[in-house]
């Protein structure tokens, strides 16, 4: 594969949360400003010649079916080339992948990848039911978001002896990390006991096993590696990426102890980057539910299949662990504004690789970070991006 090397030269996000006071447009403008402000040597916004927008849930704020023109107008770039990407929970990470390919192709020089999502302009109940009868009129009726992952927890517990405490340890770790992240939706410590005492949402997942419904936006500026030093002396490079699919409905899954799309996507990303799981200094992975992070660290090859529970309980994925996972607080604490999620994760990777993550900074030894999302009906889409600070 021959492609021009791509660099991240700026990244930023807004404080995540229930942002009732901010419009979609205001959130987008906030994220773009943050990204511009992060460019070490400055970047005139007129230099941006293409925008890729990730917004997944237009239905949640009355903007379904809109195109990509809302964001350029909101951020003062009306007229610029813009495309909107909707690819389930990996919408943001896929927008990044596409943005990287656009730069790599040489067609555009400076590309803004921006994810914006309004999750709370409608009631939480409507958000919950938004997908409960989408798709086939019958076969996924009642399938709220937790239903997509809870059957995997049931089966993982059955086959590997994974315990509720192991699941809870993921939430405890990520809430701890969230306390160290000023952008996180939740910034409070929780205990295993609190997780196990929280209300049952969708057995075996309890309230604190689930990510919140969060509004948010995040933005990244990409350019070619050749031009990167015009903007910063500490660029971060795109080392590789992969996207993969699986059958969409739960009853079509070949396994309930793993997400094959993640394995496929990460295999492609590792191959493209020429690295393996052991070369990573940290990872931001899709932890919409605690079980998801356990599945992820197995499917991404960080631990053996079936060992994700014990590894989490024993601190292997903590900030000072063997492979720190979700130092930002993850979806569980930082929040999951769907289109923005992947780009916010990549922003965390950018901070970590530049060693600018403050109290939650992990040790950077080999210079590689991985970002991952999985989602869509039946977790049928996964995107993995690998960043590096190594030239």
């Amino acid at each position, binding site marked *: 594969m021959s492609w021009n090397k791509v660099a991240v030269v700026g990244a930023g996000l807004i404080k995540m949360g229930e942002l009732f006071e901010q419009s979609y447009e205001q959130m987008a403008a906030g994220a773009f400003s943050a990204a511009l402000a992060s460019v070490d040597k400055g970047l005139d916004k007129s230099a941006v010649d293409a925008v890729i927008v990730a917004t997944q849930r237009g239905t949640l704020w009355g903007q379904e079916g809109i195109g990509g023109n809302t964001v350029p107008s909101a951020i003062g770039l009306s007229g610029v080339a813009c495309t909107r990407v909707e690819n389930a929970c990996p919408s943001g990470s896929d927008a990044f992948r596409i943005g990287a390919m656009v730069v790599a192709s040489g067609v555009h020089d400076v590309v803004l990848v921006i994810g914006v999502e309004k999750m709370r302009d409608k009631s939480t109940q409507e958000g*919950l039911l938004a997908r409960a*009868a989408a798709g086939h009129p019958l076969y996924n009726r*009642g399938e709220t978001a937790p239903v997509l992952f809870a059957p995997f927890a049931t089966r993982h517990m059955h086959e590997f002896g994974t315990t509720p405490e192991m699941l809870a340890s993921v939430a405890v770790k990520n809430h701890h990390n969230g306390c160290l992240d000023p952008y996180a939706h939740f910034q409070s410590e929780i205990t295993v006991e609190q997780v196990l005492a929280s209300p049952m949402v*969708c057995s075996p997942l309890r309230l604190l096993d689930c990510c919140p419904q969060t509004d948010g936006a995040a933005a990244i500026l990409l350019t070619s590696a050749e031009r990167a030093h015009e903007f910063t002396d500490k660029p971060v490079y795109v080392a590789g990426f992969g996207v993969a699919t699986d059958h969409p409905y739960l009853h079509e899954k070949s396994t*309930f102890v793993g997400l094959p799309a993640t394995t496929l996507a990460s295999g492609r990303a590792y191959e493209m980057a020429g690295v393996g799981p052991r070369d990573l200094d940290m990872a931001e992975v899709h932890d919409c539910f605690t079980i998801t992070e356990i599945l992820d660290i197995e499917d991404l090859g960080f631990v053996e299949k079936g060992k994700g529970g014990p590894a989490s309980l024993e601190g292997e994925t903590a900030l000072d662990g063997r492979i720190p996972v979700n130092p930002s607080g993850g979806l569980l604490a930082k929040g999951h504004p769907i289109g923005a999620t992947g780009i916010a994760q990549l922003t965390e990777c950018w901070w970590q690789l530049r060693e600018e993550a403050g109290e939650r900074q992990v040790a950077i030894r080999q210079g590689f970070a991985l970002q991952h999302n999985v989602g869509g009906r039946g977790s049928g889409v996964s995107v993995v991006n690998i960043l590096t600070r190594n030239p």
Partner: protein
Amino acid sequence: MSASPIKPVAVLGVGAAAPSLRLAAKDVGAAWGSGGGRGTVAVCDSDEDTLTLAWQAANAALEAAGITAEQVSGLWWGTARPPFAEGPSHAFLSATLGLGRECGGALVSGSSHAGIEALLGAWDALAAGHAAVALVVTSDALVPGLGTAGETTTGAGAAAVVLGAMAEGSEAPSANGAAPAARLVARATRAMPAVDRYRADGGGATGDVYDARLFREEVFVPLLTEAGRAVGDEGGTPPVSWAIADPDGKLAGAVAKRLGAPLSSTPVYGALGDAGAASALLGLIHACAEGGSSTGSGPGVIGTIGYGGGRATAVVLDAARPVPGAVPVDRLGEGRRVSYAEALRARGQLEPMDDPIQMGLPPGGAAFVRGNPEMLGLFGARCKECGTISTPPSIHPTCVGCGGAELEVVSLARRGRVQTFVVNQTMPPPFQAPLPLVIIDLEDGARLMVQGSPADAAALDIGDEVTLSLRRYALERGIPVYGYKAYRVAGDWPQSGATVGSAQDGAGKEGGS
């Protein structure tokens, strides 16, 4: 009216079903501050209706009769409460039973007499030689007006009978050539234009306008007595006992007393309440079961009388031996006792003020037009290359196993084991928590995700054996949406509400009210 002698038809098998819930009369009385009331009545859960009850009873009857769906020439369905007051009720039920698009028959409605009228219609088609095997299903789940006396008497239930035409010049039906366990041998109808129980066009609940004593003395007792006597007067053997549709638990006894033979259907009313259009056949099934008659008469010449809308019809059955599938109706299962409020909610008489959150696709839309046959008939698409079954066919133009494009539509197995599951506890209306969602590996190798029974929520586990039963998933924008739900075979509660077949498995569960 009768011009030519009645041609008998063979009874090949029967089946009965009761809904899942039971409401105590005393709880109704307590709610209205009107004191007492005895016994319980059967009530449909929110995912049950006359169609799902009919499906249960019909399947039980077909299985008992040893008749396949392909052999059935017509479906006659009698109910005062078809799921669509005007709409595709018969086509839906026919699709769920796999009867095929060419299936004949009729939907009979209009009053509680609909059940026995459906039986007469099927009988006529067989006698005329226009059908060889007829499936007669009667089901009802009346909704009594709030605060009316009907709340403590109105029940629900279903009964099905598979009838076969007699081969020319033979004592055996053409369907299987074996001597039938029983034959329908005589019938008589009498009418009187009197308003009693009624529901206006578009009305939600049924009301009673009659003066109780007037109805008893001038309408019900004389009319049913006349019909009952008429079948005896035709020269056949007089019935040794009568099963009689009973609106209040007292009227039937008065008729039997006039007819001079014991009433066999007392336990039917006791178990279910007034099952409307299903009452007459439920009584017949109960009476022809071994040990089913309260008089201990068992098989023999037995009569039943159906009533509704000012018409009464008596039918006589001559049973040589116990009819396949017949078991006492009071052994259909105890059901789950619910509060008055829960019963009202289940019947749709207690609704939240807020509009329910609407689902993505309207049930009248194209997705349902495409999807109804495969949802109601439970179809999959089997790959001719690798044998994998992808479900449902409409969304699988290629195989999920190998990507092959040559697929054939197959009917899926109805039993399987739990691969994995969840119990959803956070379901805003229109859903009700706890809602199990179960991924099942069916016996034929297909995999399916369906809703499970709330009653199984606590005990459900990986590897559990489950059976699929038709239920009403939703009543959406006024339109019922049907699909299959998974029930633990070893559940604490009869797996499909209660059917004759499962009641036998659940020995020791009998009780009755």
